[in-house]
């Protein structure tokens, strides 16, 4: 018992360290903070692509079509610019420095290392190629580098010291120049170095050497299934599974999601069969971590009154993927009697979805539905009626799988409740 408790404490400590690590949290928070922009673009892409012929004809004939397809082009297609600001902002703020300054310097830096050229009409233009999903890793790296150097320069007080008598405001505005100049020099060096290699730009280098292999690995089905199991196992040990897994995998999963989003919004085939971030919500975690939706429904007709109450409490949030009351109230934590479905059902849902998507039965997910979208709606938004129907099947499956385990636990709890009531009567 001691050993188990120690292990749990260690795990909580480690997950605490991961969550508190400034770099990791600035990446996850930075990515999360660009959600309003992404969701805006995503909703419009849905409006734009609704598959009704009459509706589409209407859009084209009124000229609205050019408008509805626009938001996606300025959001998902150029997401890296937003991300670079967002992450740099968060990181600088976590060091108690001006996030805004770090953020705009980060945008500048990102543009320094991004190829710019002359367009056909002789004006300068930036290809959006590296501003979207393919540029994400560079955006993260640049944001972190810039914010960190910015903080360092300020901490070491590397600024041009003005002679006495010069008003402090002047000294302050000169002080802001130094971090900016230092960073520009670094970025120019990066640009120059990579321009002379076969890769021609840091974007191409990172995309080929880092982003592509890492996302392939992180989005592979074994990695995905391991992560699914991990979210449940973490909760079993009392640690917030999805939070920890997402802190670690978020940077790798986001390009996959954005790539599918971009493809969908541009009417192209979706490149990634597995979008772990989306699949976790849509297939593996219906009702919350552990795919507990079936359990929540089963509890509505529990014998034990405590479970009945808990069921009524949890059933509506479960539809939105929230099941903390179940996790802590059942509890699922350290509950060996329910661990099999708790880990098994999400794995089943995830595994079936992977197989079904690879044989073409289900379309790849679009990555549009925001966290917390109710089940079935989320499936419809992200993949159409096939996915929504599959979700309904998974709900039924969840009920079937959880039921035998739940019945056992319910009977035991009920017996205890009766025994307790009898004791109370005796002593009364």
């Amino acid at each position, binding site marked *: 018992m001691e050993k188990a408790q120690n292990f749990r*404490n260690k795990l*909580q*400590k480690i*997950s*605490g360290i991961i*969550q*508190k690590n400034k770099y990791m*949290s600035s990446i996850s928070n930075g990515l999360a903070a660009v959600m309003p922009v992404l969701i805006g673009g995503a909703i419009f892409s849905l409006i734009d692509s609704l598959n009704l012929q009459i509706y589409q004809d209407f859009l084209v004939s009124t000229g609205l079509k050019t408008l509805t397809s626009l938001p996606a082009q300025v959001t998902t297609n150029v997401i890296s610019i937003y991300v670079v600001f967002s992450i740099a902002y968060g990181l600088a703020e976590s060091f108690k420095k001006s996030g805004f300054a770090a953020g705009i310097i980060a945008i500048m830096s990102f543009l320094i290392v991004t190829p710019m050229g002359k367009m056909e009409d002789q004006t300068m233009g930036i290809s959006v190629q590296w501003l979207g999903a393919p540029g994400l890793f560079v955006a993260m790296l640049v944001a972190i580098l810039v914010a960190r150097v910015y903080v360092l320069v300020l901490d070491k007080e590397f600024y041009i010291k003005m002679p006495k008598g010069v008003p402090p405001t002047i000294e302050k505005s000169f002080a802001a120049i130094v971090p900016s100049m230092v960073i520009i020099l670094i970025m120019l060096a990066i640009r120059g170095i990579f321009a002379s290699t076969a890769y021609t730009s840091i974007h191409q280098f990172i995309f080929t050497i880092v982003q592509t292999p890492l996302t392939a690995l992180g989005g592979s089905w074994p990695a995905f299934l391991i992560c699914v199991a991990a979210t449940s196992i973490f909760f079993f040990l*009392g*640690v*917030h599974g999805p*939070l920890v897994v997402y802190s670690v995998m978020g940077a790798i999963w986001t390009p996959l999601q954005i790539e599918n989003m971009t493809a969908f919004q541009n009417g192209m085939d979706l490149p990634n069969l597995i979008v772990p971030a989306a699949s976790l919500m849509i297939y593996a975690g219906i009702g919350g971590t552990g795919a507990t939706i079936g359990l929540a429904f089963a509890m509505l007709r529990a014998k034990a009154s*405590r479970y009945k*109450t*808990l069921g009524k*409490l949890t059933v509506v*949030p479960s539809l939105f993927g*929230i099941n*903390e*009351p*179940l*996790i*802590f*109230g*059942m*509890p699922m*934590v350290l509950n060996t009697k329910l661990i099999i479905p708790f880990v098994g059902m999400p794995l089943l849902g995830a595994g079936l979805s992977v197989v079904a998507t690879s044989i073409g039965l289900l379309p790849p997910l679009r990555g549009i539905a925001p966290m*917390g979208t109710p089940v079935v709606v989320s499936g419809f938004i992200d993949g159409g009626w096939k996915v929504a129907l599959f979700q309904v099947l998974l709900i039924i499956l969840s009920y079937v799988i959880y039921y035998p385990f739940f019945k056992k636990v319910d009977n035991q709890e009920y017996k205890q409740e009766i025994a307790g009531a009898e004791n109370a009567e005796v002593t009364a």
Partner: protein
Amino acid sequence: MTKKILLVCAGGFSTSMLVEKMKEAAKKKELVVSIDACGESSLESYLPADVIMLGPQMGHAEEDVQEKVGGNIPVTVIDMMDYGMMDGEKVLATAMKMIGA
């Protein structure tokens, strides 16, 4: 002076449900308290408070939070079962006891 209870959580969805239940319980008991919930990172902007209660999955943060508030505010981790059952009355009672302590 109205006592202030601050709940700290990671996600915030479930904690906000608990806050609602606690407010109901407080009303029934005719207690005048202010109850709020926040994420760990925004803790400082929600101070001062008379008691800080952490969600069960925040157990690892207890020491850090105590350090952050400089030992003047009682900090406790909400009992897992009370949290799971969203037992507003029990959690409120625990909070009031800690404030009184």
